[in-house]
């Protein structure tokens, strides 16, 4: 019996503007960065990061792209490097950034303008 030889079609990826989908490919790419962020549930680890960021990132084996994104505090670059927002939020917290600060950074707005945009949604 022969088994029909199926040629895998390239998977059609759904694209949603301004939105990255955290699929297997992204999760594999981002594993080291997300693992580091997950460690920040523990205050001891947050202190260790603050004390020596370079060494802490090295301990988790961040890729050069991930390390550069963290050094630049650039959330879109972290997502591009496979970071997931639920874990990245813990890193942002170390930098004193809440989700509205992070939203403002990603949309290129001031925090005040980003908050106004949200308030305006109630009127739309």
């Amino acid at each position, binding site marked *: 019996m022969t088994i029909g030889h199926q040629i895998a079609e390239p998977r059609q990826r759904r694209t949603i503007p301004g939105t990255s989908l955290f699929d297997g490919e992204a999760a594999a790419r981002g594993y080291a960065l*997300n*693992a580091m962020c997950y460690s920040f549930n523990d205050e001891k680890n947050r202190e260790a990061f603050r004390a020596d960021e370079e060494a802490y990132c090295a301990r988790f084996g961040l890729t050069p792209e991930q390390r550069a994104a963290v050094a630049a505090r650039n959330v*879109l670059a972290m997502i591009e490097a496979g970071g997931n*927002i*639920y*874990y990245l939020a*813990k890193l942002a917290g170390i930098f004193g950034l*809440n989700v509205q600060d992070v939203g403002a950074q990603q949309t290129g707005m001031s925090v005040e303008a980003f908050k106004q945009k*949200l308030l305006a*949604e109630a009127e739309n």
Partner: protein
Amino acid sequence: MAQIVGGVFTSHVPAIGGAIARGLQEDSYWKPFFDGFHPIHRWLAAARPDVVVLFYNDHGLNFFLDKMPTFAVGAASRYQNADEGWGLPVMKPFPGAEALSWHIIEHLVASEFDITMCQQMTVDHALTVPLALAWPGENNRPVKIVPIAINTVQHPLPSPKRCLALGRAVYEALSAWPGEERIAIFGTGGLSHQLDGERAGFINKDYDRFCLDNLGPNPEALTEHSALDIIELAGSQGIEIINWIAARGALGPVAHEISRNYHIPISNTAAATLLLETGEALSKVA
């Protein structure tokens, strides 16, 4: 016979926990959201549930990407809250309805839901904030809990249709439970919001209204969208509506709206609260 009294559906934005800790319920930014809980407090006082089965999603407190269950059911006698990394006060542990958890697990697996069972499970703001909203005050927690976590983090995500079916299987389990408990169902998260990407801050009032209008009378309407459709319609984290869909299934066939509240924004989120009462509860009153 156990009785399912009704369902509380609410957003679980972490900042709400911060507002509770700082006593900001009457502050002008927060009041429109907290006011939505007045009718729920009155209803809970009359309905007197002793168990809450709560559908939520973990945000990287208990589950990491090394092992990510699609559906996870708690089976513990006690659930610890813990530091999530950004300064929310840690709440006291919650007592678990352990025997009921195992009964639900038995029924789910017999019904071919291949769930993960957790005898140890830390619970994050998605569980603690809704319970603190429902029963304000540190020592005012009259319920035992059964937490059911749904993966909203790592794609592929479970379909809304499957989440409704899971909830319905939980309803069957609760209907067959011989205990005398009065059971409330909670579904937490949403409504539309997106934290990440260039579309951060996205909100969709029309889709949110569609969810609030249909969840009680016609939950199938919410399952006509795929998980990815919902992300497009409601934002990356708006997908948390699947927790509401599962919770709606656990209420049983009939659910009547008692109250709702919808307020934009709380943090980046279109915040909503919905209270549904079961046909079962209504017939007991009548």
